[in-house]
């Protein structure tokens, strides 16, 4: 469980600041999720259709995909806000497919934070605990314990001096942290986050990302986060699950799916600018990332190709200056592709250029099925 929050002394001491990371409890983390043959459709369009998927306990798993890929539906099915038409969901080995949201060991952070506008921060955070205590009847959590836990978690998130405020008196970042606090305070093994960063402005978002990662480390629970932003997915997740049209495209660590995208879709979806895809002479598709290309001569005559890679030639159509790098969008024999150079590299529109992509950076896909070869 999320024992990190049982640190009242240190939290009180360092009120208002994020406390030093406490020792993570080494006990096996809980919150492993198994989905089996889960299916859900809205009308005739299938929203989610997953033969099997598992989210390991203690991971920060990011569900990512373009809008409408079913990632939110999947998250809401885990939460219990939607019920699958078929299949089963297990958390820590228990079938919770039919359990009520409050009883399945999950907490959730909503995209718009969904703070109760009429309640103070403390009341927002404590709402779930108070209800839990009420439902438990005798032997419930005492009031003092509730308020202590609320205080602790708010301290952890730097909200210690905002307990009496109402949501409308808080900044966007503070609201997000209240939403997190509300989810964390209940110490559920699984924390679901539905696009938690999309309502923050750009500057805050980078900071919030780091905070989330730290929080995950400290809390040692299972986090399942939904985002449509591939960069966010790669930077946040310990596991990334790429979905498209309700189906699983690939799941793995960020490195795995970055290095070995399982298919054309994943390859194109990850990275900005997107991977170049061109057809090669053997009827396969070749992919490479713009940053992986080595310029073979921009002004000088081309050097001879080596075995260690593939050479592409094309004419520069548009150039883009992106700080320390410069992008060149080219039109080649097999179609358009892009390449990234150091900023100092002189590239002019209309110029013919050749690039070498090392063999290790080349990805091969089947032209028909799009699967990795």
């Amino acid at each position, binding site marked *: 469980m999320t024992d990190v929050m049982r640190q009242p002394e240190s939290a009180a001491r360092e009120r208002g600041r994020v406390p030093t990371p406490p020792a993570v409890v080494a006990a096996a983390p809980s919150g492993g999720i198994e989905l089996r043959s889960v299916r859900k459709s809205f009308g005739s369009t299938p929203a989610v259709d997953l*033969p099997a998927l*598992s989210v390991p306990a203690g991971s920060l798993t990011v569900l990512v995909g373009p809008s409408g890929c079913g990632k939110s539906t999947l998250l809401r099915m885990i939460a219990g806000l939607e019920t699958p038409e078929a299949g089963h969901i297990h958390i820590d080995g228990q079938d919770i497919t039919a359990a009520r949201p409050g009883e399945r060991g999950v907490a959730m952070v909503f995209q718009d934070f969904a703070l109760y506008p009429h309640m103070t921060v403390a009341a927002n955070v404590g709402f779930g605990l108070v209800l839990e205590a009420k439902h438990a009847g005798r032997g419930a959590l005492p009031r003092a314990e509730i308020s202590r836990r609320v205080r602790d978690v708010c301290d952890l998130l730097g909200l210690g001096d905002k307990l009496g405020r109402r949501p409308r008196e808080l900044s966007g970042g503070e609201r997000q942290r209240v939403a997190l606090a509300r989810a964390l305070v209940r110490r559920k093994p699984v924390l679901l986050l539905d696009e938690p960063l999309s309502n923050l402005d750009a500057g805050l978002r980078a900071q919030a990302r780091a905070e989330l990662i730290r929080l995950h480390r400290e809390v040692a629970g299972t986090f399942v986060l939904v985002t449509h932003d591939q960069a966010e997915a790669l930077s946040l997740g310990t596991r990334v699950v790429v979905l498209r049209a309700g189906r699983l495209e690939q*799941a793995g660590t960020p490195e795995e799916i970055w290095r070995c995208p399982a298919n054309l879709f994943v390859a194109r979806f990850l990275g900005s600018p997107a991977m170049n895809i061109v057809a090669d002479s053997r009827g396969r598709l070749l992919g490479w990332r713009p940053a992986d290309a080595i310029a073979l001569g921009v002004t000088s005559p081309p050097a001879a190709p080596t075995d260690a890679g593939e050479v592409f030639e094309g004419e520069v159509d548009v150039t883009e200056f992106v700080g320390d790098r410069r992008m060149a969008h080219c039109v080649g024999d097999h179609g358009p592709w892009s390449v990234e150079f150091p900023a100092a590299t002189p590239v002019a529109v209309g110029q013919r250029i050749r690039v070498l992509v090392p063999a290790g950076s080349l990805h091969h896909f089947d032209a028909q099925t799009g699967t990795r070869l």
Partner: protein
Amino acid sequence: MAGVTLEPTPVSPTPPAPPAQGGCGVRARSGPWVYSAPAILSLATWVYVPMVATGVASLLDWDLITPARYVGVANYRRLLADHDFHRAIWQTGWYVLMMLPLATVVPLALAITLWLRPGRVSSLYRALLFLPVVLAPAANAVSWQFVLNPLQGITNTVLADLGLPGPGWLNDPSWAPVVIVAMTTGKIIGLNTLLFSASLSAIDQSTIEAARVDGATSWEIVRHVIAAQLIRPVALLGLLCVLLAGQWVFTNVALVTQGGPNGATDNVYYRLYTYAFTFFDTGTAAAAAVVITVGVAAGYVLVRLAIGRVRHADAPTAG
């Protein structure tokens, strides 16, 4: 390797539980029923069962006491040939036409005026305007009757002092319906001013400031900014008020003129009431109820269509 894995294993052996009821996911089974049961029961008992009963009664000859007799559409035939009913229909149309501007334009103008210059005085005005709404209609009726007493009421006394002939007001068939409308609109103006004020308060003041910065005059602001945003509430409230007005007119007619003098203040609602509770001709009353309901429904549909058209036409100005 991956904690999250795509397992090649096929579908789990346990057959998928079928909790779904239909295409749109699963709901708690009892929840919605329990919460809406009181409303559904209320509507069924006090609206829909009576409605069907009225439909049946319209085919009967029945005075509530002696056994009913089936007479087919005879009641409808008699009703549609009844001059009193024709007159009541025209008179109702007249009331609606008189009420509509008083229920929309006047309160809207008042609401906008009060809204453009918010403050204590405006709040006071709004409060005073709302006052007639909560006055008991019976007291309201008594007041108007007393003030408009043709022989010695204060109105005609003042008119006489000014050398003007005082009309017979409620005794004069051409004035009586006007007085009824005046008595009724007191309430409607107050209520709608407040309702329009509420709609206005939802408009962002900054749009008005922006318009002012752009050099728009108050009139232009009203025309382009406010009017565009208020068309829907105005139209809907106008509609609602025509419905309510029918009831409030009915009350005033029942209290003050009983349809007279000479049928001048009659309307379909009062006519229905007369058939039902003065003449105890339940069948004809029920037939009138059916005819009126069909008429109101038709009017409602027409107004809805008209609103759709107005909104469509005004969409570009809304910006």
